[in-house]
């Protein structure tokens, strides 16, 4: 899986809520995790047409405390279902874990980024190096990328595939001893 995305910017502000803004709360209560069920509702609390307009490898840009609220994974799965990348000023720790669990490539700490992009800008983001290029406004800036150990989880496709691989390696080594 390559981690260089080029696409259009979808800019949202500060305090985007994981429940309600990013995904109807009902799906969290139902513990719904099927991507095909969640995809038509991604970000519809803020932009009802987002699921129709967004394209693979577009970049969602969020402000501070993106995906705030009780750490439900559904809003992050909704983004992952559209195969977009996420760049935000900050993200609470529960939602960071959920973004990784969903296999969503992200740059979690990009202070000031919402001041430097507009929706519709052409962006290119290398999630491995942290480099963001705004091809419309003609600038580039490098932010802290995820540590390598967390990029591995995204490369594996999310937490469950990563865990499956870890368990298989462990069982192959005979690491789990009978108790």
């Amino acid at each position, binding site marked *: 899986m390559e981690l260089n995305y080029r696409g259009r910017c979808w800019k949202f502000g500060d305090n985007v809520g994981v429940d309600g803004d990013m995904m109807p709360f009902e799906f969290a209560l139902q513990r719904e995790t099927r991507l095909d069920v969640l995809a038509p509702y991604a970000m519809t609390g803020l932009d009802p047409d987002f699921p129709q307009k967004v394209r693979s490898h577009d970049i969602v840009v969020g402000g501070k405390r993106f995906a705030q609220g009780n750490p439900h994974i559904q809003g992050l799965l909704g983004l992952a279902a559209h195969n977009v990348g996420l760049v935000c000023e900050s993200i609470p720790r*529960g939602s960071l874990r959920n973004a990784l669990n969903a296999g969503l490539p992200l740059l979690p700490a990009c202070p000031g980024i919402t001041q430097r992009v507009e929706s519709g800008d052409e962006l290119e983001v290398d999630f491995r190096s942290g480099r963001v290029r705004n091809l419309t406004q003609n600038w580039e800036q490098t932010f802290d990328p995820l540590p390598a150990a967390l990029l591995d989880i995204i490369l594996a496709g999310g937490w469950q595939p990563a*865990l499956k691989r870890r368990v298989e390696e462990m069982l192959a080594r005979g690491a789990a001893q*009978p108790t």
Partner: protein
Amino acid sequence: MPQTITEKILSRVIGRAVTPGEIIYPEPDLITTHDWYVVNFDSALQALGVDRLYAPEKLLISTDHEPVAVSRQAAERQHAVRAIVRKYGIEHFYDVGRGGHGHIFPMELGYVAPGMLVLAYDPHVTNYGAAGCLGVSLVVEISEVLACGSAWIRVPDTVRVNLQGTLQPGVTVRDVAQRMIVDLGSDLVDYTVVEFGGPALAAIDVDRRMTLCNTPVEIGAKSSLFETDQITEAWLKPRIGDRFEHIRSDPGANYKAAIDYGLGLIEPQVAAPPTPDNVVGVSTVAGTKVDYAFIGSCANSSLADLRDAARILRGRKVSAGVRLIVTPGTQQIAAEAAAEGLVKVFIDAGAVLTAPGCGPCAGGRIGPLAPGEVSINTGTRNDPGRLGPRDADIYLASPLTVAASAVMGRISDPREFVH
């Protein structure tokens, strides 16, 4: 290199000095989960082809979210949990009537010692910080710890809070805890461990330290803990004996911020709907009619909290049309409350007691609200739906303020009762 308490704990666990920001896979000293995440972890392990736990002796399970099953579904779940406990050979299983709230009784029973790392399913495991222990919630990823022994965490920065000053009459540590998360703010606290110290510690007992450790997680803290002192030692020594060792940050340890925080708030604080950090002075919401009051939850169900409530309820009646539910945190607290006469005070006042555990705060499965009703309680969160229906307002406050409001039938300043 001088280290914070958190850096010391994580360095000890992984066997080398850690650096804030790095990703590590630590093997915890203890793992906890509750009755609502046992069937789930079992399914997760089955899907992975894992048929035994990496370290079953480290796992503690408590039936606290729904101790007395109130539906057929709950009864069947409890039945399934007991079978899973037998299947994996889990020794530390505290079923209904045995322990109580899993964020409290393990401290009473000596499971928690200063310097330990505990990984948990539930976010409020941070309570163990009252004993100088680092408790971190991983939610569903606790399945990875159960299967493989560890899961990733990022070594956090620490925000040091030096508590100073003294509490005013009618103002409790809960009021301070609610106000403090607003004053610190999520931008500062996110991802960090909040470490408490300072001259006011001498006046804050272990029960109330749990309340302070319970709250920062609401604004994104990874955990919270206290440095140990004579109070911790006096409380823990009878429980853990020689395993007690003091833990404090080194002089010159690197903090993200060090803040002096005064306890001398002049007014009790109430968290209004819809979030725990929507905090106002009680005078702002005083007079709001309430239907339902509750004293309990992992934030406020200690003996100290029940004594606070009893100060106001003794010799008084809960207002007509208000129901007051009291949930002692643990079996031990319930027994002590009975021995001290607190239970009689509550019953004479017209309150009901529930089984030790989370009480209604666990999603309102026990004692929910009706749509349109208003509650004031000492629970941990007030998101819409926390006590059942989404269109019911929840105010969070101290045991004193909740008891005063239950007596008056409207949100009331407890200073009218406590002098």
